[in-house]
């Protein structure tokens, strides 16, 4: 189709944003996520950490939502809203870091497997298959149990359990792109393997990587919460959604808000990430391009 060259230059990112904007659910997800990040960033501005998040008070024990404490208080009299907002400061960065590690390591392994010889491919992918055969949460539990409970170990465990899906996705993307004519064209002008991978292959498999990352962050938040829930993650009194849920469940019959609101926070965050991830997948799909 003829294209009018007079039209203003549209970069790829702008085109993706234009398509994303049309997807109402994705924008809803983006707005929720932006709000959560905003509150997490300015948590100290709204709620003082020492007085509201850590300090216990027997008098305020298990108070239902009120004008003073919008979401009620927990079993030692701490404001639940304050703890949820500060909890985001743990869950979100940890989730982002784990997925960043998984993306880089998994992506690199996948790219090597896809671009390299059959033998390299076989070795890497069979190892990944072994990891994939174990449910990721079980794998994280086993790793944390073996390495000991600490923040670093938890990050490490969740990262490792997230590597295989990334390796698989990047590998299959690389396998497709490897056979494109522009890769052959790059070889014909004498581009090195390194240049071909970094300049020609990886930029063209960003779409599946970004989508997988967005969706995995949700999974990672859940994993952090799950580990904390069973006592292998963040330990009290640090506010973390999973551990709040875990300690709150004993009081659930008498004070539903102790469990309900941290659960809602987890749900909202994951929902927003999933909506955004789905929207990104559609927006990045080159087949839908105009």
């Amino acid at each position, binding site marked *: 189709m003829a*294209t009018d*060259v007079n039209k203003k*230059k549209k970069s790829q990112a702008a085109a993706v944003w234009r398509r994303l904007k049309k997807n109402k659910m994705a924008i809803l997800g983006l707005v929720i996520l932006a709000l959560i990040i905003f509150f997490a960033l300015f948590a100290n501005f709204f709620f003082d950490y020492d007085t509201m998040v850590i300090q216990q008070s027997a008098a305020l024990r298990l108070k239902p939502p009120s004008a003073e404490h919008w979401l009620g208080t927990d079993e030692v009299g701490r404001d639940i809203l304050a703890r949820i907002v500060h909890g985001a400061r743990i869950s979100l960065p940890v989730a982002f870091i784990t997925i960043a590690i998984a993306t880089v390591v998994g992506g690199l392994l996948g790219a090597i497997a896809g671009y390299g010889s059959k033998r390299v491919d076989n070795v890497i992918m069979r190892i990944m298959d072994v990891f994939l055969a174990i449910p990721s949460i079980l794998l994280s539990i086993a790793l944390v149990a073996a390495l000991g409970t600490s923040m670093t170990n938890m990050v490490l465990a969740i990262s490792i359990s997230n590597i295989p899906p990334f390796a698989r996705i990047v590998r299959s993307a690389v396998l497709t792109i490897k056979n494109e*004519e522009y890769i052959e064209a790059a070889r014909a002008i*004498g581009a*090195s393997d390194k*240049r071909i991978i970094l300049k020609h292959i990886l930029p*063209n498999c960003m779409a599946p990587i970004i989508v997988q990352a967005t969706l995995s962050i949700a999974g990672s938040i859940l994993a952090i919460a799950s580990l904390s829930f069973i006592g292998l993650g963040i330990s009290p009194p640090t506010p973390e959604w999973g551990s709040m849920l875990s300690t709150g469940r004993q009081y659930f019959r008498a004070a539903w808000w102790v469990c309900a609101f941290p659960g809602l926070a987890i749900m909202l965050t994951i929902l927003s990430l999933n909506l955004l991830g789905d929207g990104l997948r559609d927006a990045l799909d080159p087949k839908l391009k105009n």
Partner: protein
Amino acid sequence: MADKNDVILEVRNLKKYFKSPTGTLHAVDGVNFSIRKGETLGLVGESGCGKSTIGRLILGLHQATSGEILFNGRNICEMNKKQLHALRSDLQIIFQDPFSSLNPRMSIGEIIGEPLLIHNKVHGKAELNAEVARLMDVVGLSARLFNAYPHELDGGRRQRVGIARALSLKPQFIVCDEPVSSLDVSIQAQVLNLLKDLQAEFGLTYLFITHDLSVVKFFSDKIAVMYLGQLVETADSTELFQNTLHPYSQALLSAIPAPSSRQKMQRVKLIGELQSPIDPEPGCRFAKRCLYAKERCTGQDLALRDFGKGHFCACCQAGELAGNPNFN
């Protein structure tokens, strides 16, 4: 015959086999030809006959199974990585599909400038941009497309980008792998004219790979007809069309629908469909589809025979068939 010094590329007994689950695929099976400086050799054949594989073997993108490819007297098949890299400046390729041969994430300027960067032909961004602008001008691309992306361009302009990229290193020899077959007719004519102009201007030598006999007649000095990995007939362009010797070339010619109200199509001069190139039986590969096949066509492989005036044909009955009422 050709002055030895004039020959820029010579292919000797070139073979390329691929392993496939059902046997060995004979993509290129004992091919010989040579091209003189400034000449265009048209390599014609149907899909799967191995013509594109020859193009990629010449560029060193595939490793030949056996045989020699001499470029300016040096054997490409025996070159190491470094020598091959240096060779890129002299030997380039234009691809068939202008939609998949350009990286969608790179701008037009980046695509055309990439070879210059890789081979350190320019110093500094200003020089690079100036050179890219010059190349865009040479192939008739407007300068404002510098920052555009491939998806914003139509097929004809994309193919011009591919041509500019191939020209950027100032090569002596360009393999054109079906450069116009995915373009519309009116655009196709523009690109063919451009390629002809560039040849005259820069003294380029082309290997022009195509399935379209009318395009090849317009474009080439010499023509080689290929069938299932082997050359069946080579001759000067006019000679081949006036005095077609091989039944397969004859069939190809008869198959072109003439855009004319007066010339009605002849009956197609072959039987059945393309045979498999996997583990072919010895003998003439075309025998199973040939209207004139005899017993002596099978059994042993046939070499190209000289029929004078630079006309070579592999058919064992070539020359005898002229009297046959169906022939010509």
